[in-house]
């Protein structure tokens, strides 16, 4: 039992979010070939369908925690319920994706068990028996290898895109679904969440986009945005931008990608005229394939690009649009 890895399965609007699958992939890789069991835990008032979906994901067990008190997410309810599950299961690791919800409750949960959480990790490294988790500090200027101290369970969250959804090892058989009895008295939940809403100008969720064409200062003029739009249309992509483009009003703020905008992890990210400052990279480095078009061969975007084109985007992009249309129709 002590070698179990427990994965937290987040769901929103009745669906398992992509971060959940990334966390499952992380747990499976952490378990490695050692035969360590991976179990997922899911909370809510009725999660049987979602538990069934998780049961096919190559896990040994899916733990369900159902209570009317858990109909809506609250940090109190989640910490209290998960604490009871963890006390009973005594896993070695508890694995999360570093989402807004996890940031809200996981530190509280770990502290309630007198344990630590290594948050926002990019991955891990093994040295013999020791495991180091890699995280960025000083806003990405340095990486740090971090090691847990004290007794397990060890709590770790991974950054979006650190592990890939499609690397989940699907199981041959269905995992056992185990309902957990927990006690969450109504008075233990002190915060009352209201309905979620979007501000008029915040209408786009780029975090789920499969392909993104992103524009930076190199686009030079608002009239040139049309070129990027055409490329996006040809690819069936969403369009996004680095901060200066949105600050200038050439695209709405809700299409900004980076530390003060959205964090994305598409299959394909095409950066047009983006230099790739750390503030931008933070928001897109989880992308699987990155194509960068930039005049400056020394631009930092090329440090993280899969394919680099050191050239004039106004010459390359029209040719690219034509070639993509050809490929799609062929």
């Amino acid at each position: 039992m002590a070698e179990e890895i427990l994965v937290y399965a987040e769901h929103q609007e009745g669906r398992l979010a992509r971060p959940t699958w990334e966390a499952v992939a992380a747990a499976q890789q952490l378990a490695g070939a050692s035969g360590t069991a991976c179990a997922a835990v899911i909370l809510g008032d009725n999660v049987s369908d979602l538990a069934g979906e998780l049961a096919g994901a190559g896990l040994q067990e899916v733990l369900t925690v159902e209570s009317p008190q858990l109909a809506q997410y609250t940090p109190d309810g989640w910490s209290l319920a998960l604490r009871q599950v963890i006390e009973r299961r005594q896993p070695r690791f508890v694995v999360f994706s570093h989402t807004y919800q996890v940031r809200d409750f996981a530190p509280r949960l770990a502290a309630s068990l007198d344990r630590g959480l290594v948050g926002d990790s990019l991955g891990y490294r093994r040295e013999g028996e020791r495991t180091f988790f890699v995280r960025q500090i000083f806003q990405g200027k340095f990486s740090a290898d971090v090691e847990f101290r004290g007794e397990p369970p060890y709590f770790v969250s991974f950054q979006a895109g650190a592990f890939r959804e499609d690397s989940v090892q699907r199981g041959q058989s269905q995992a056992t679904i185990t309902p957990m009895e927990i006690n969450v008295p109504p008075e233990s939940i002190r915060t009352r969440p209201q309905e979620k809403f979007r501000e008029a100008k915040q209408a786009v969720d780029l975090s789920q986009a499969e392909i993104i064409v992103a524009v930076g200062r190199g686009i030079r003029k608002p009239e040139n945005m049309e070129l990027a739009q055409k490329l996006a249309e040809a690819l069936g992509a969403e369009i996004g931008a680095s901060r200066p483009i949105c600050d200038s009003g050439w695209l709405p703020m809700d299409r900004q990608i980076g530390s003060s905008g959205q964090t994305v992890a598409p299959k394909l990210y095409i950066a047009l005229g983006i230099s790739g400052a750390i503030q931008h990279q933070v928001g897109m480095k989880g992308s699987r394939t990155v194509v960068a078009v930039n005049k400056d061969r020394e631009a930092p975007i090329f440090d993280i690009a899969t394919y680099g084109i050191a050239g004039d985007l106004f010459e390359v992009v029209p040719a690219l649009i034509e070639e993509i249309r050809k490929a799609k129709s062929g």
Partner: protein
Amino acid sequence: MKIVVCLKQVPSHDANLRLNTASTWIEEADIGFEVNEPDVYALEEALRLKEKLGGEVIVCTLGPARAGQAIKEALAKGADRALHLDDDAFENLDAHGTARVLAAAVRRENPDLVLTGLQSDDFGFAQTGVILAEMLTLPHSTIVMEIQAEDGHLKVKRELEGGWFQWIEMPLPALLTIQSGINKPRYASLKGIMAAKNKPLQKLAAQDLELDAEALKPRQVISRMYVPQKTAQTEFIEGSPREIAERLVDRLKNEARVI
């Protein structure tokens, strides 16, 4: 309303950071420091609440002697008094240890509201405030973009992913972690700077807070720091625009298999 603001000093944004010889931390000599950005917004929010509702704003800072500058700035902006938590035993604490020390100090004040920035620009744990809430057994909310307070009760606007928001109600006392951009922070006035000199500043060490080494034991340690490696082996595609387009589409189709 009695409000405690936890405020931290971090290296300046434009500081040229170098690793120490053991590669376990940065070289702190010869660099500038400033107040952690989200904490500046947390302080401003506290001052606005006080102006509206009356009460007291207490700044609580954990850090070495140099952090006194951050406290001075907060007092100059209008905080009423300060707690400076300084002890050799507090050096390089992890989020858990930091929250332990803050909890010991804040508990003595018994405030109605505790505000922190949502994360620091150095460690970037984004945890200390939430752990502090647990240690103080307070309800909490994170990444807060607006606060409405009335009659022992709070309504806060919490930022969610993808442009979504949510109002959350909770009783006081409570703890909130504040997002940058929630307000427009003020500058200290000359009058404020003069007044700050006479404001009470209490220094507290481990012994004053009844904290021993066991209580501050880390849950996580940095074993090594380094400049991030290049994460991609970039393949540069050369040729005429037409050739580049053909080669790229071929790779996206057959190598990366993304189109």
